């Protein structure tokens, strides 16, 4: 038989084996299909970074119509559940008991000073234990006040300087819905898990069960070994990705504004970079338990924290920002956000895609160099 025919026969054998193993092993299916869905639903429904019905106390010493009008704006906002209290002492006590998250205080000369066209201070006290939530509350308060001021102007009431100057605008994520931001980011996480954790685990399992030793003593080439792992887990990862995108669009109504072609191309690059990293790990570590720990530490956690998925990288220390450039997930989070919320914006997609392509080549190349047909490294 010709070398090509033998190569195809070997590939057939190894791919069929891998497929059957994936289909029959509940843990790979769980990791590739069930876990993405669970993560999506947890993050999509449960863990939203938006705040709604924030309990807020309004202490107003002014009974004038303008003060009433302003407080009514807060009542109407879906973000707040306001209660009116009569003394500051009472409000402070409730804040201490964490029954409310913030206090808005209007002074007794609020209406009068506003009428005179003065700048009127409004006091906002926020429970700062959860810094993120505190910042959210500040933002919501500003936007409510901004709307109120706009409306006053629209109604032709005197063009007073607004009490607080608010200039907040939201692009793309018009509803300021963190779900639209989280779900595309999650897809990155899911693909990281399949690419790094699952791949590294199945190879370590072959070492532990002794099947790797038997495989090595067949005429299998190193490139066969590499392809035999890359192809099935690439496909599995893409299935997980497709599933996640489908759920994102249909269940969570996250807009998808890019093209499917761009998604397939760019996610393939990311998948290959992750797989390369997983293969590299498994070439070095042959114990399932250890490889699972390392892939969580070196793969999953960076993808979670250093990719811009949870925290805005711009607001992190310079040191962290520098490190984040080594994390493939960072580039794919940018790609995924762009594709979902903005569309095929190639000036953003292209540089990120190129970096991912480079990483894929680098990691797979390094993994290939480290694959050996001997037991010793």
């Amino acid at each position, binding site marked *: 038989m010709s070398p090509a025919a033998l190569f195809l026969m*070997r590939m057939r054998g190894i791919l069929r084996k891998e497929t059957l193993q994936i289909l029959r092993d509940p843990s790979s299916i769980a990791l590739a299909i069930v876990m993405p869905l669970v993560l999506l639903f947890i993050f999509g429904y449960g863990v939203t970074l938006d705040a709604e019905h924030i309990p807020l106390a309004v202490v107003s010493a002014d009974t004038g119509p303008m003060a009433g009008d302003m407080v009514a704006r807060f009542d109407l906002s879906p973000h707040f559940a306001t209660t009116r209290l009569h003394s500051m002492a009472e409000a402070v006590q409730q804040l201490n008991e964490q029954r409310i998250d913030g206090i808005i205080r209007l002074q007794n000369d609020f209406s009068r000073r506003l009428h005179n066209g003065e700048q009127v201070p409004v006091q906002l006290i926020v429970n700062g234990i959860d810094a993120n939530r505190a910042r959210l509350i500040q933002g919501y308060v500003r936007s409510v006040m901004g709307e109120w001021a706009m409306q006053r102007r629209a109604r032709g009431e005197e063009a007073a300087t607004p009490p607080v100057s608010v200039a907040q605008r939201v692009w793309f994520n018009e509803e300021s819905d963190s779900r639209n931001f989280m779900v595309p980011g999650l897809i990155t996480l899911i693909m990281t898990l399949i690419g790094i954790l699952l791949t590294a685990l199945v190879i370590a399992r072959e070492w532990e069960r002794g099947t790797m*030793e038997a495989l090595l003593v*067949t005429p299998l080439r190193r490139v066969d070994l590499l392809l035999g792992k890359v192809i099935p887990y690439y496909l599995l990862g893409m299935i997980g990705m497709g599933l996640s995108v489908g759920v994102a669009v249909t269940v969570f109504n996250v807009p998808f504004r890019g093209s499917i072609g761009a998604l397939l191309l760019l996610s393939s690059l990311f998948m290959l970079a992750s797989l390369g990293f997983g293969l590299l790990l498994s070439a070095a570590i042959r114990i399932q338990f250890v490889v699972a720990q390392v892939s969580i530490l070196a793969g999953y956690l960076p993808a979670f924290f250093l990719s811009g998925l949870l925290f805005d990288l711009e607001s992190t220390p310079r040191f962290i920002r520098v490190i984040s450039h080594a994390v493939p997930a960072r580039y794919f989070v940018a790609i995924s956000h762009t594709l979902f919320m903005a569309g095929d914006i190639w000036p953003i997609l292209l540089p990120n895609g190129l970096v991912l392509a480079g990483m894929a080549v680098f990691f797979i190349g390094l993994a290939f160099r480290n694959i050996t047909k001997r*037991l010793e490294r």
Partner: protein
Amino acid sequence: MAGGIDSKEPVPAEVVLSVQGLKKEFAVKKRPPVQALRGVSLQAMAGRVTGLVGADGAGKTTLIRIAAGLLVPTEGRVTVLGFDSVGDTLEIQSRVGYMPQKFGLYQDLTVAENMDLYADLQGVPGAERAERYRRLQDMTGLASFTRRRAGDLSGGMKQKLGLACALIKSPRVLLLDEPTVGVDPVSRRELWKIVYELVERDRIGVFVSTAYLDEAERCSQVVVLHEGQILAEGTPREFMQRMEGKVSRVVPPQAGKPRRLYTRLVGREHIVDATIRSGLVRVVTDTVGIGSITAALAGEEVAAIEGIQPNFEDAFMAIIPRAEHHFQPARGGDTPAATPDREDEVVVRTRELRKFFGDFEAVKKLTFEVRRGEIFGLLGPNGAGKSTTFRMLCGLLAASSGEISVAGNDLHSSRAMARSRLGYMAQQFSLYGQLSTLENLRFFGKAYGLDSGRLRLRLEWAFAEFDLGRWRDKAAGSLPGGYKQRLAMAAALLHEPDILFLDEPTSGVDPFARREFWLRINGFAEQGVTVVVTTHFMEEAEYCDRMLIMSQGDTLAMGTPNEIRALVRSADNPQPTIEDAFIALAEGEVVPLVIRSDAGSTEGADK
């Protein structure tokens, strides 16, 4: 490539594997490298079985792995069919069949799928497959299991499937690394039948490592490896001829009570080896004749001392340097064992013991009794239900029905009471690898509730009895195999239990450590400790007072070694071994029978 290999007939036709000045070192952190092989040269021929024999750590697996191209030699070279193991690895790998110790099967794949995989990897043309599969399946008896998953096969079947996969491309050389470890005697016998068929019909060369010395006897050529060096090589006949006149058997005065003579003989001057076989003591001496035996047994009553045919094991024991034997049994005054009146006391009793796992009946109506000071063996192949029975006896697993009482306590009602009187040594090393020997012992002593005064005394005892002083502050995980086993046993004995449960204590242990272990067990039994032990080494059953042979949850036979052997005694085989009896029982040549050796625990033939 180095060596300048000619395209045709690079080496004389007959040699299929050639090892020249092979050295292999493994680097160890912060310590001098381990020398696994120190200059080994040998050859294996086509149409022959070449056996590689040696204790654990002798370098057998390393040598086979180098030949298979899995390891690179530090010095020297190995050629297989004329190809260099380093330079032409792929050439070798497409021409040899290799079966690693763990068989290399995919548990999730069926028998047929495993075979397809290896056929694809080895490039077996589609047209040849049907014929090839049929032949391999006929040979291995796997034809009716093709759709079963490899993970669901019995140990023996797995091993045969592993062999079928290694033979998928009619290799010219077959490399087998301890192919029969943990496999029952029937399956072992079948495997060797297949191997010999191939050797005779296809003239392939087989290179096999084994720790079973009776298997070495069946090889055409044997190489004895010890600490990385060849100690001897030749045909098994040559080995045995060297032992002519140096092997005898000592017949004890009372039939079936060889233990006293056995303990007297072990470790004495000129006595190389003493074992209990077929109810007699088999003695190997380093002098011709029985002079040294009579000297060692001065003052003992003996029925007869006869010279017998040596076997390979005798030769092996004589070749391996004596430094291997550490243990000297304490012969303190030769006090007779437990007093007779206590000897009749039943300490372990089961009645109609059953265990179901779902619909599967793992243990079927097991009834037996063990008396004080007895060594009671639970024998059977993997999957016979030994471990399940064992766990029920120790109170680790609840019985589905039936009664168990241990040391007079019903396990259902007073488990803790029963446990305080028993010591348990698990199949796997179950001590804390990072703690030192002393810390481990101290922990187990405290766990069993010894107060500090008693604990100190028992620790002193343990270090002296098991010769562990040297390892006192070393991490338990770093001890050599035999010492790990001693430590585990010391931990199980710290609280001076009346009953000792030992689950496969000798699996994965070399012949020397196994001998030492049985000697110790004998000693404890003589002090009145009751020992219940499981093993799949049939010859070890000889050391038991009584045994229960199980297969698939059923009782095949129960009785003393003499009684069991009597089942298969015939004109052809006047001195059958327990293994012969087991094979006959398992193959249904002998009606399964529970021998009425003691009142109360009797049961008719089952079903």
